[in-house]
C-alpha cells in the first residue's frame, strides 16, 4: 500500500516538447499534446523521474498532491490460492516485500495480476510498486507478469522498460554451466542449490536481516 503525497506540474512556457518526461514515467501520467507535455493528475504517483529528465529545461516542478490516493490491493485478496501459486511460480514468498520504497509485497502485485492487470504501468497505479526509485522492484514485477504468461512488448524507442533486458531471462537459475565453471569465485552452483532448496528463496538478501549476533566478546 502506498499513499501519494506529491505530484508534478508542467510549465507550458518552459516545455519544449522533447518527450523526455513521457519516456520515463512509470504510470503513464504524462503524454504529449502536440508539442506540449500534459499531466493526467490522477495517474501521477510522485516518483519525480520526469523532473530530472527535464533538467535542461526545468519545465517540471513538484507540488503537494491535492487528492492523496492510496494505491494498493485490499489485504483480503492476497491469500487466495491462485495468488500464492503465482508467487511460487515466480519464485517469491507471498509476504516478501518486493518494492523497498513502498513495502509492496509479492502477493499484492500477484493479486492485481490475477485480477486482470497486465501492464507494468497499470500495476504501479494498482499497487504503488515502482512509484519511487524503481531500481529494486522492476525485475520482480516482470517475473510475476511472466509467470502469469503476460509478455511485455515495447518498441526500441520506448525506454521506460527494455523488454529484452527486464530480468526474466538473467538469473541464478539461468546461468550456463560453462559460466559457473569459469567464475568459481561467485559460487554460482552453491547459490543455485541454496535457492532451489528454499534456504535462500530467491531474494537473496534479506534487505535488513533480523538476526542479531548472539556471541559477545
Amino acid at each position: 500500500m502506498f499513499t501519494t503525497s506529491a505530484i508534478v506540474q508542467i510549465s507550458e512556457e518552459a516545455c519544449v516538447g522533447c518527450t523526455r518526461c513521457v519516456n520515463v514515467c512509470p504510470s503513464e501520467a504524462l503524454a504529449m499534446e502536440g508539442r506540449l507535455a500534459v499531466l493526467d493528475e490522477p495517474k501521477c504517483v510522485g516518483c519525480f523521474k520526469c523532473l530530472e529528465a527535464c533538467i535542461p529545461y526545468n519545465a517540471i516542478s513538484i507540488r503537494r498532491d491535492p487528492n492523496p490516493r492510496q494505491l494498493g490491493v485490499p489485504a483480503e485478496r492476497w491469500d487466495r490460492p491462485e495468488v500464492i501459486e503465482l508467487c511460487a511460480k515466480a519464485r517469491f514468498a507471498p509476504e516478501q516485500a518486493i518494492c523497498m520504497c513502498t513495502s509492496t509485497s509479492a502477493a499484492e502485485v500477484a493479486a492485481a495480476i490475477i485480477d486482470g492487470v497486465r501492464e507494468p504501468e497499470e500495476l504501479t497505479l494498482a499497487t504503488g510498486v515502482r512509484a519511487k526509485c524503481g531500481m529494486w522492484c522492476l525485475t520482480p514485477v516482470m517475473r510475476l507478469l511472466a509467470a502469469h504468461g503476460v509478455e511485455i512488448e515495447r518498441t526500441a524507442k520506448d525506454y521506460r522498460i527494455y523488454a529484452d533486458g527486464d530480468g526474466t531471462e538473467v538469473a541464478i537459475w539461468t546461468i550456463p554451466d560453462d559460466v559457473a565453471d569459469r567464475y568459481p569465485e561467485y559460487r554460482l552452483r552453491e547459490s543455485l542449490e541454496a535457492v532451489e532448496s528454499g534456504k535462500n528463496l530467491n531474494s537473496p538478501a534479506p534487505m535488513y536481516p533480523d538476526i542479531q549476533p548472539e556471541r559477545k566478546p
Partner: protein
Amino acid sequence: MIHPAATPPPLGKSRFAYGRKPPTMRAAELPQICSVRVQDLFDDIPDPIHRAGEDVTPVREAAVAALDRVDMSMIKPGDTVNVLCSEHGFGMMGGDAYAELLRAVRDEVVGRTGTEKIKLGMSSASSKFEQLEIVPRFGLDEHYRGEVFSFGPYDNGVAIDTEIGRLYGVRRAYAAKWLIHVHYDDPREVHFHHVNGRLLKAFTMSYARMETRSVFHNNFPTRSANIVPRAVYESPFVRQRWAFSAVLSTSPTGTMGVDADNDLIAMDRRITLSMLQRYGKMLELFRTVDRCFTVADDTRWLPYQHAGGLTACSLFESGEDHLDLDFADQRPDPPPDKRSVEVVKGPVRALVMNYAWKLFTTARVTVAADPDVAKDLLRIHPDREIHAAADLPQAMDIAAERAGTDKAIVFDGCYGAINLTRPLAEDLIARAPEVSRRVDEELLPKWLRQRNLALAA
C-alpha cells in the same frame, strides 16, 4: 582511550537535505558525545596519507605514481575518453581526495596521450540534480573544460550482450572510444558485494540501467550477484572500450593512496586483500553492538554516512558476517520477517535526524532535531513514527527514551575516530581486544581462504 569528540567535516546548505539548511549544532558539540580513535581500538590500522580538510598534494603524488604504471598507449590524440565516476566518492572525507584523483587522471591522460576530448561522466545516486551541487564545488567543470555530464538509471540505454545474457548500460556513459573507471574501495553496502568484486559493482549499480540493477538485486543471492557486473566488464562491448581503472584506496583512518591498473580483476584482488585487512576488524566490532540509537549528522543519505570510516549501513546490516562467503548452514529461526523493510530488529532502535539527504529512513522511530527537518520528514514519510524536537539536545533525550538506551553513535563523516556516547565507547573499547584476536586468528584466515588470497610474507 576515551577522547573529546572529534571535529567532523563541515556541512553546508543542500537542496537535498531534510530542512534544506545546515544544522545549527553538530552532534560533536553535545556534552555527552566523546570519541574513540580507531587506531586505539586496533593498532594495526595504518596511518593515512590524507585526512579530510588537509592539503591534497599527497593524493596527487600517489595518483601520478600509480598512473605511471598504467599503459595508456591505446589512447591516441583526438580519441574520445569518458572518465566515469560515482557520486559516493564525493561524500567520503569531504570529497577532496576523490576529486583530486579525478583531476589527476585528466591531467595525466592529456599529458601522455595528447587527446583533449575527455569527458567526466558522473553516475548519480538518486537524481541527476546531484551534479549541480557536487561538480562546481570541486571545480571539476572548469578542470574538465566544461565537459562534464551526469547520468542515471532511467537514461537511454544500450544493450550489452554478455556471457549470462543481455544486460543494459546507460548509453551516454559508454559513448566514447575509451573508458576510464575511477572508483574507491569504501566498504559501503558490504551486504551486497561482500568484498568479492568490490571494484566491479559500479558496472551494475553506477553505469547500468534500472533493469540490470534490479537483476543484480533480485535475481541472484548476494554472494553470487557480482557475476552480473563481472559479465558486463568481460563483455566484448566493454572490452573494446576499456582503457584502465584508478581507485582511491582508503582505511578507517583516511586516504591510504591510489591504485591503478589496466587489469581491473588483478587490482580488485589487491584491493580485496587490503579492504579485509583494514576494515575487517571495524566491521566485526560493529557486529557486537546489540542496542543503540544513531545520530544522522553527515552529508548524503542515511545509509551512506560515515563514522570511523564505516558507512551507517554497516551497522544497520550487522546481523551477519557479510565478509563470510559461506551460506549459513541453517535457516534462521525465527525466519526473517520478509514484510519488513525496516531495521526494527537490528541494533538501531531509534534515529536522531540532525542532517541527511532525503530518501531513506531506516529506523521505526525517527526524532527530528529541528522543526524544519521535522516538517520534511513528516511530509515525505507519512507512514513513519516521527517525533519533532525543538533542538538537538532534546532530540537526543527523546531518542534515548524511545530506544531504551543511552548508547548512541554519531554518523558525522569522521574518519580516524568515532563520535559516540560514553557507555557505547566503553563497550567498544572493552570488546576490541577480543574482536582483534578473533579476526586475526579465525575470521581473516577464513575470509582470505574463501577468496583464494594470502597475506604477503
